[in-house]
């Protein structure tokens, strides 16, 4: 038990280099409990969020992107753009559509850091900023297929995905769109089924 915990800690501290097999195996069935990791993440308020049970599961659209607070490349533009999408969603945010921005620098992005980040962009309830163990977040990234097949490129954080993965678990529909796309285009996509 002790050994396992130490291993987990080591993984959490390890840089971007951990090699994972491709997950998200092709399936005839809509992706469900068996396909998504139900790992525990922390939101900007320090509350535990089960990735599958609390975020994915159900008949709502979930829209997920990946950021880190110190990212100076695309993240600020991306988050600002998603803030415009949040504006278009109005009351539907949190009800029909759940937004989640997951940190790919979880060691540095504590809930407190993410809370300041979220407030800076005026994120409302229904748009969560999530951190957690590196290994768990890597698992999520692999499951959603948002990684580069070229390992060297995949390790380059400045090249991390700018895609917004969206879907509705109950309906088995999944797609993705650039988080930098026109906010109206993103809005149309993520409200397609509601």
């Amino acid at each position, binding site marked *: 038990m002790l050994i396992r915990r130490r291993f987990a800690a080591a993984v959490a501290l390890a840089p971007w280099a951990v090699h994972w097999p491709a997950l*998200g*195996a*092709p*399936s*005839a*069935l*809509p*992706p469900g409990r*068996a396909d998504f990791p139900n790992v525990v993440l922390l939101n900007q308020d320090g509350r535990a969020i089960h990735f599958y049970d609390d975020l994915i599961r159900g008949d709502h659209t979930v829209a997920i992107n990946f950021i880190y607070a110190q990212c100076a*490349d*695309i993240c600020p533009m991306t988050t600002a753009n998603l803030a415009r999408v949040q504006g278009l969603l109005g009351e539907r945010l949190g009800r029909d559509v759940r937004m989640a921005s997951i940190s790919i620098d979880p060691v540095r992005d504590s809930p407190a850091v993410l809370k300041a980040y979220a407030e800076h962009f005026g994120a409302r309830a229904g748009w969560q900023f999530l951190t957690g163990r590196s290994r768990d977040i890597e698992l999520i990234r692999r*499951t*959603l*297929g*948002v990684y*580069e*097949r*070229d390992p060297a490129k995949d390790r380059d954080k400045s*090249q*991390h*995905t*700018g*895609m917004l*993965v969206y*879907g509705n678990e*109950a*309906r*088995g*529909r*999944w*797609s*993705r*769109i*650039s988080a*930098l*796309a*026109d906010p*109206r*285009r*993103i809005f149309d*996509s993520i409200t*397609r*089924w509601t």
Partner: protein
Amino acid sequence: MLNRRNLFTLGLWGSAGALLSWPVLRAASGSASTLRPVLTPFLDRLPLPPEPRAIDWSPNQLPFNDLDPEALRFVDPTQVKGKATFYRIVSEVRKVKLHAQLPATEIWGYADGNLPAGQTWTFALGPTFKRSLSNHNQFIGTIVRHENHLPSVQEHRGFGEPRTSVHLHGGHQAARFDGFPTDITLADGTAFRVTFERGEHFDYAYPLVDPGFFTVTHGTHTERASTMWYHDHIIDFTAQNVYRGLVGFFLVHDIPIPDPADPNAAALVQHMRDTGDETNAAGAPFALQLPSGDFDIPLVLQEKTFGLNGELIYDVFNTDGFLGEQFLVNGMVQPFLPVKRRKYRLRFLNGSNARTYQLFLADKAGRSFPVTQIATEGGLLSRPVIRPSFLLGMAERIEVVIDFSQFPFPAFSELYIENRLQQDDGRGPKGKFERPELAARGTQLLKFMLEEVVPDPSRVPAELRPFEAISALELSTAPIRNFVFERTNGQWAINGEFAGDLSRAMAQPVLDQGEIWRLINKSGGWWHPIHVHHDFMRVLKRNGRLPFDGTGPDFGQSLERDGLAKKDTIVLGPNSEVEVFSRFRNYKGPFVFHCHNLEHEDHAMMARFDVV
């Protein structure tokens, strides 16, 4: 006892030696959901879906009394100016056998909606349209009502989006009938509503007139018959819907007899070449007499992955491009086709989501034999070209003639179409466009079983459909546009713009004014077959050089040089740049161009252009 390792081994034996049949399983990894059936190739005959049944109608009694007013513009209800031909096509959920050893697979497919009572459509593919060009007369065209009988958007569970829009790929038709991917509002404020879901229908008018018809001279009539196909084109979900099966052929021939009312009839006669009758019963003076009828065979290459119950398997999180585990021709896994020892015209279409092929005609031992290419997307080449093999990117069409009388009994009893291109993932095949990496032996997709020698009236003349390359003068005045296809942060961009915003146009070419488009791939090692809707492209340069015209070393690369071929899909290999000439004729309005790696198209390697 069968442990996982044994299953895996058995699976390998099963697929290599075809000694073991269903239900031998192959396990890529441990869980039940990754068990796959191993299928014995060449058990099933190649399916050849018939034509849809036209709906006959009398003057002033249209088959659809609620015909769309826009489609009605291409119909003369009195039939005085001509009689349009009407069809009803239904998109539906159905179960189809895709291999003898596989339980029936639930697919989404097009069916003939005008079958006699009690009959059902049993093919994976939709009906194969076989239509003649309408010459100068837009009132003798084709009207297709597409009805959506799929589950509703609300009811459906699983991949695919049951809202539809149908693109006639290779067709030259008005924007409204081109299968635009989504509903938009046009610049003048009018609604452009072209998608439809369960319970709704859409009327498509395909006048099948030559581009240029509406000009004073009725055009030059040089854009003629070709192999087209129709498929779903809904925004963000085309890959999933096409993978589910929404695909069919639409073949167009030249008419054998000119319409006496056509003021341009005299000039037309010399263009009536691809008449679809090898006997030339009509006596058309320029008819080529290419193999026709039972000897003219469309072949669509697709890939699918199946679960143990025959169910279609797809990976919604793979947006690099989905590769299937089984190879299908005309909706059947590795079928066979009995052939006579004579000439055949084979029309190859790559209908796969993300796989590029390089095809060889080979015998059992892997010895390969040349084929004669006669056509590509824009119809006949100006002359036939003998090819050792040919590359086929997604959505490309290549037509070849194979003379099976060259393979006498008893030395030859069977031949195969074999794909030798190496490709492991959706980024594209290995190697470069000019030099793809081939395996010594590939996958046999289709088996020909050679039968008796029969009389063969068909011919392949040394000249097919000659046409002039675009003149230097015209090129010198053509405006130039650059379209750069890039990948940054895992996103596709065209000219730096992310995510196919179809609410506005990226380019506004002027009607009838020729333009040079530079299609530039700066996305590293990725391959992108770029499809431009509306009108054909003339390929001027590839990587700064004259494109391949069949002379010099032939590695299988696309025959595309202007003056020889017309294209609607251009394969961009890694870091390639291709320069094409396009002139958008007849129809103004919104159209799209996009990558035909369907997962790339959906994520959103697509842009709108408006012809103004």
